[in-house]
C-alpha cells in the first residue's frame, strides 16, 4: 500500500499556490482598456526610433484610425493572454489523464499480458479526469459567458459580420457546444469510474464475469472515445481558428494525447519504482513503455507532417493562413516542437539498451512532455493572442498550477488502493514479463 509522502503533498501545494499567484498577477497585469494598450504601443514605437516621424499631414487621420484599430486588436489579444495561458495546460493535462485511461482501456481490450502490474498506476493517473474535467468545463463555461474572447464564434457581433461563421452556427453555437462538452467529459468520467470500480472489486477475488465486463466496457469506451475525441478536438481546439478546418486534426491531437499519456505513465512508474513500491515492475516493462513513447512520437510527427505537407503543397489561401500565421509569428516554437517531439525522442530512444535505463527514459520523457505542451501552445495561441504571445509569468504559472492539482490528485488516488492489482487474468504473466 502506497501512502502519499508529505514531500509530494507540500510540493504540489507549493506548485498550486505559486501558480495561482502568478496567474492572478497575469490577470491583473493584462491591460484593462484600449488606452493602456495605445500608451504601451506608443512607448514601444518610440523606443524603435520613431521611423514614422516624417508622416504627411494628409495621411495622419487615416493612420490614426488604423492605429486605433491596431490598438484595439492588440488589446483583445492581451486580454486573452492569461485566459489562453490557463486554457492550454488545463486541456493538455486533462487530455493526458484521458489518454492514460484510453491506454488502460486498450490494455483491457487487447488482453495484454505485460501491463497488469502497471494497472494501478494508470488508474491513479486517470483519477485526474474528475478535477481536470471540472477545470476544463469551468473554463469553457466562462468563455461562453463572454469573459474572454478565446472562441471568436461565441461573439455575436463577430458572427453578425461573418458569413463563414454564420454558415457554421448550426454546429458552433454556445448551448450545443456546452452540451457536447458535458457529454464528452461526463461520458469519459463514467466509463473510468465503472471500469476502475470493477478492477477494485477484483481485488477481493478473481471473477471471470468482472473480467469480461471490463473487457466489454473497455471496447465500448474505445468506440465512444474515438468519436468524442475527434469532436472534442474540433470543439475545443480547432474552433479557435474558426475559419480553418482540417480533416486529420482529430488524429493529430490523438497522437499528441497518447504519447504524452504513455510518457506520464512511464515517469510515474519510474518514480514509484525508485521509491521501492511496484516490486514486480522490471526494466522490461520500462522498455515496453519507452517503445510506445518512441512509436507514438513518430506517429505524431507523421500526422504533423501530413497535415503540414498537404496544406503547404496545395497552398489554398483559405487553408494556408493557419500555417502562414504560425510560420510568421511562431517560427521557433513551430519547428521546435518537431525537434522536441520527434527528432530527439527518436534519436534517444532508438537504442534498445537505452530504453531500459531509467534516467534516459526520464530525460526523453521530460523532452516529450515539454514538446507536447508547446504543441498545444502552438495550436491554441495563434488564434487567441496572435503575435502578442510570450511564455512569461501567466503561462509558466498556469502550468505550475495545473500540474500541482494533477500531482496532488494522482498521488492521492494512488494511495487509495494497493499499487499492484491482486487479481487479473494476466497478472502472473505480467509479473514474469521479460523482453
Amino acid at each position, binding site marked *: 500500500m502506497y501512502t502519499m509522502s508529505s514531500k509530494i503533498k507540500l510540493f504540489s501545494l507549493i506548485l498550486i499556490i505559486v501558480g495561482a499567484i502568478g496567474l492572478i498577477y497575469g490577470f491583473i497585469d493584462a491591460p484593462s482598456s484600449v488606452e493602456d494598450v495605445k500608451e504601451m504601443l506608443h512607448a514601444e514605437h518610440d523606443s524603435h526610433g520613431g521611423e514614422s516621424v516624417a508622416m504627411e499631414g494628409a495621411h495622419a487621420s487615416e493612420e490614426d484610425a488604423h492605429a486605433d484599430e491596431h490598438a484595439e486588436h492588440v488589446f483583445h489579444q492581451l486580454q486573452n493572454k492569461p485566459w489562453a495561458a490557463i486554457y492550454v495546460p488545463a486541456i493538455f493535462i486533462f487530455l493526458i489523464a484521458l489518454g492514460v485511461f484510453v491506454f488502460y482501456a486498450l490494455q483491457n481490450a487487447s488482453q495484454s499480458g505485460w501491463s497488469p502490474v502497471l494497472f494501478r498506476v494508470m488508474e491513479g493517473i486517470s483519477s485526474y479526469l474528475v478535477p481536470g474535467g471540472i477545470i476544463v468545463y469551468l473554463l469553457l463555461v466562462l468563455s461562453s459567458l463572454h469573459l474572454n474572447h478565446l472562441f471568436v464564434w461565441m461573439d455575436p457581433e463577430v458572427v453578425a459580420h461573418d458569413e463563414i461563421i454564420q454558415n457554421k452556427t448550426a454546429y458552433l453555437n454556445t448551448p450545443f457546444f456546452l452540451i457536447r462538452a458535458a457529454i464528452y467529459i461526463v461520458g469519459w468520467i463514467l466509463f473510468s469510474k465503472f471500469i476502475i470500480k470493477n478492477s477494485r472489486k477484483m481485488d477481493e477475488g478473481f471473477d471471470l464475469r468482472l473480467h469480461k465486463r471490463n473487457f466489454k466496457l473497455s471496447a465500448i469506451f474505445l468506440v465512444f472515445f474515438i468519436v468524442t475525441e475527434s469532436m472534442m478536438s474540433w470543439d475545443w481546439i480547432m474552433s479557435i481558428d474558426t475559419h480553418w478546418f482540417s480533416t486529420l486534426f482529430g488524429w493529430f491531437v490523438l497522437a499528441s494525447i497518447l504519447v504524452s499519456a504513455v510518457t506520464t505513465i512511464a515517469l510515474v512508474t519510474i518514480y514509484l519504482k525508485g521509491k521501492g513500491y511496484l516490486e514486480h515492475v522490471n526494466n522490461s516493462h520500462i522498455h515496453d513503455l519507452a517503445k510506445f513513447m518512441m512509436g507514438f512520437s513518430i506517429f505524431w510527427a507523421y500526422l504533423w507532417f501530413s497535415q503540414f*505537407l498537404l496544406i503547404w503543397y496545395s*497552398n489554398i489561401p483559405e487553408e494556408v493562413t493557419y500555417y502562414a500565421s504560425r510560420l510568421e509569428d511562431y517560427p521557433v516554437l513551430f519547428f521546435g516542437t518537431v525537434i522536441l517531439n520527434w527528432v530527439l525522442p527518436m534519436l534517444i530512444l532508438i537504442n534498445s539498451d537505452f530504453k531500459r535505463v531509467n534516467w534516459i527514459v526520464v530525460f526523453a520523457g521530460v523532452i516529450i512532455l515539454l514538446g507536447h505542451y508547446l504543441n498545444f501552445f502552438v495550436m491554441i495561441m495563434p488564434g487567441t493572442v496572435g503575435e502578442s504571445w510570450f511564455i512569461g509569468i501567466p503561462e509558466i504559472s498556469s502550468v505550475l498550477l495545473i500540474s500541482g492539482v494533477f500531482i496532488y490528485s494522482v498521488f492521492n488516488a494512488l494511495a487509495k488502493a494497493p499499487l499492484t492489482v491482486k487479481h487479473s487474468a494476466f497478472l502472473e504473466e505480467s509479473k514474469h514479463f521479460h523482453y
Partner: protein
Amino acid sequence: MASKVLHAIFTDDDILMQAVKALREKKYSINEVFCPFPVHGLDKAMGLPHTRLAITSFLYGLVGLAIATWMMNFIMIEDWPQNIGGKPSFSYIENMPAFVPIMFEMTVFFAAHLMVITFYMRSKLWPFKKAENPDVRTTDDKFLMEISVNEMNVQAIAEVLHENGASEIKLIDNK
C-alpha cells in the same frame, strides 16, 4: 589424433538448453548448434555476442537519407531549377516538404535492403550454396550439438552429454 568432433542429438529444446548450460558450466566450448526453429534464449545460454545488424541498418539509413538529399538538391535546385507549379526552387530548404516523401522512402529502402544483404554476406547465404547440414533430421525435429574434442576430454564430454539427455552421440572426423 586428427581433429574430431562429437555430434550429440537432442529431441527437445528444453533438454538441449540444459545440456548447453551444463557444458558451459564445465567450460567446454560448443562449436555449433543446429536447430529446426529458433530456440528462445539459446544465444544467451551459449554466450554468443549480440548482433550488430541494427547498427549497420541505422548507418545505411543515414546513407540513404544523404543520397536522397543530395540527389534532389542536385536535380531540382542546382541543375535545372525550373518553376513547376509555383513551388519555390530557390534553395533546398524552401522546397523541402515536397522532397520528404522521397527522403523517407530512400532511407527505409537503404536501411532495409543493405541490412538484408549484410545479413546474407555475414551468414554466408546465397543461391547454389552447398548446404552445411550435418544431419538431415535437424531441419525437421532434432537438435544437434557439435563439440570439438581431443583424446583427453572426449570421454568426459560424452558423459556430460549423456547425463544431460542426448539421445545419440557420435564421434566423427572433422572435415
